[in-house]
């Protein structure tokens, strides 16, 4: 809920979306509720088929929910046609009108809204400047590059100044370098226009870099909503931890429940005291999630939490990934940043200790 007491830009309330009927029905969205704040860069993140694009299409009005409501600020827009919603979309394939010039594409929505000619002309000029495309105003859209088409699609969707801009994996067709540039560009556009952005992607890195908040989706459900660091550091369940970044999952049993901490025994025998999450499960079987970069390796057992034997080390430029075989024969990955001029720290077959800060261990109910 909004801390500043403002009405959220978009509220999705208990929305179901079911495709097909009877025998071959597919539940695309299952009781989904989420509130997206004004002027927020909000990302729907999940694997393909998780329902993120369906949710976006419901907000745009291209589909109708089977049940539930969608509100734009205080207005119920659930049954409104797309052309009656002050919401615009940047499509995955851009969907620029091929028989029109860049200018005609950007002016389209303004003409449909019957704005005066002078205003349309001014807005087109402003939009072209905003996306840095002034010199291509009279080009046909099939005569410009993919990256430029992307910018025209953005300008076209922003021109009528929608209350919410929806972006359906708009960067997936661009190459790596261009994608990186556009990520920064999108952040800048959102900042300059002050429009609420709802961004759909399956790329976790993209989601973490650009978003104010991320909703992780799977199988028609929203699993967790929060700022990127919270999603990354405190995943609420195994799927979230697994989908975002690399994670070591260690099965464990709770052996003692204290006030702020619980003691867990790992399969490999070690006992670990970890901070108790807000909702501790009733059962004792849990999983501990540990990020590979949040551990340190040491040569001797000593004060290390876990011990194992180094299986192999993979050098990948900025980091080296060490795979360590634990006492229960499972593999644990540790990522150590490489320092300039320093060789690999350990050799295969070395006995070594893994030191971890209990703060960096996330307890997941299983």
């Amino acid at each position, binding site marked *: 809920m909004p801390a500043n007491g403002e009405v959220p830009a978009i509220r999705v309330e208990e929305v179901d979306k079911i495709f097909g009927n009877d025998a071959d029905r597919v539940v695309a969205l299952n009781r989904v509720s989420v509130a997206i704040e004004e002027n927020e860069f909000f990302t729907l993140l999940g694997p393909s088929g998780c329902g993120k694009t369906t949710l976006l299409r419901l907000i*745009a*009005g*291209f589909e109708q929910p089977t049940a539930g409501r969608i509100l734009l600020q205080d207005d119920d827009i659930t049954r409104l*046609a*797309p*052309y009656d919603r002050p*919401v*615009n*979309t940047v*499509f995955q*394939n851009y*969907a620029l*009108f*091929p*028989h029109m010039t860049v200018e005609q594409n950007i002016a*389209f*929505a303004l003409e*449909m*809204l019957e704005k005066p000619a002078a205003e349309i002309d001014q807005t087109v000029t402003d939009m072209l400047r905003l996306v840095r495309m002034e010199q291509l105003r009279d080009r046909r859209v*099939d005569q410009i590059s993919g990256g430029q088409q992307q910018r025209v699609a953005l300008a*076209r*969707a922003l021109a*009528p100044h929608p209350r919410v801009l929806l972006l359906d994996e708009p960067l997936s067709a661009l190459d790596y370098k261009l994608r990186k540039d556009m990520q920064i560009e999108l952040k800048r556009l959102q900042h300059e226009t002050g429009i609420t952005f709802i961004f759909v992607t399956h790329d976790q890195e993209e989601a973490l870099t650009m978003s104010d908040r991320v909703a992780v989706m799977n199988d028609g459900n929203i699993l967790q909503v929060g700022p990127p660091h919270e999603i990354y550091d405190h995943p609420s369940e195994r799927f979230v931890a697994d989908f975002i970044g690399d994670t070591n999952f260690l099965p464990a049993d709770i052996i003692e429940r204290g006030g702020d901490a619980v003691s867990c025994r790992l399969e490999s025998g070690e006992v670990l005291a970890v901070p108790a999450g807000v909702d501790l499960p009733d059962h004792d079987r849990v999983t501990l999630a540990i990020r590979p970069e949040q551990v340190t390796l040491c040569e001797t057992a000593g004060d290390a939490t876990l011990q194992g034997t180094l299986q192999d080390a993979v050098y990948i430029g900025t980091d080296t990934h060490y795979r360590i075989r634990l006492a229960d024969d499972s593999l644990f990955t540790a990522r150590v940043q490489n320092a300039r001029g320093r060789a690999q720290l350990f050799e295969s077959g070395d006995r070594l200790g893994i030191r971890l800060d209990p703060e960096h261990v996330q307890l997941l109910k299983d």
Partner: protein
Amino acid sequence: MAVARQKPFVIRHMPGFPTLAIVCFFALYMPLVPLVIYSFNAGNNIALWEGISFRWYVAAWDNELVKAAAVRSLVVASFASFFATILATMAALGTTRTRAYRGQTTIYALINQPLMVPEIVTAVALLILFAMIKEATGYHGYAYLIIAHTAFCIPFAYLPIRARLEGMDKTLETAAADLYARPWPTFRRVTLPLMLPGIFAGAMLAFVISLDDVVITEFVKSAGQDTLPTYMLGQLRRVITPEINAISSVLLLISVILVTLIFFLSRNKTA
């Protein structure tokens, strides 16, 4: 390094393919060659060459019956292709721009039925039906010919329009709706301009088909309503002169020009 790679199947590389292709093209176009050559014959015989001359073109041009039949053909073809194109455009929109509905395949088959039903059957059926209407109303005008031609031209106009619509990205119409265009402006500003080459191709194809029709016209026409093809058929029962060759060559030329235009319009450049 010699890697044994399996050759992809390319029909052009099959043994005998060039020969077969040449034989086919020869069989298709060879008969047209003497037709065109003898249209320039100076003599009265369609098979005996007596020197070059344009006299049969002049004769055809001066023949009032030929002129009247040619005008009739053009008028009927214009009206029929116009109406057929409008109906075919609506049919194409109805079969591609709607949610899938029950019986869609049946409707598709029904639209293309004139391609399957033997033309002589349609001709006889129309003869009987129109005879009944003529009896009841006393009207004997050109409407029968135009209606009959419109009917059998619909599938020919429909196919290129439908192909064009199917090749068009439906997201474009979604995008137009997203950008505040209601259904009619979406159609006028996005769908129609993009399907226009298909509509032109369909209209021209319908025009050529109507212009060339013999069977249905022969059955449906009233006295004095000969089109160019039925006039030529009538001439064959009498003395054949190279005048027929000359008329045929002109019809051929018109068809070639229109079909070439259709070919260029149907090439899918955008969308």
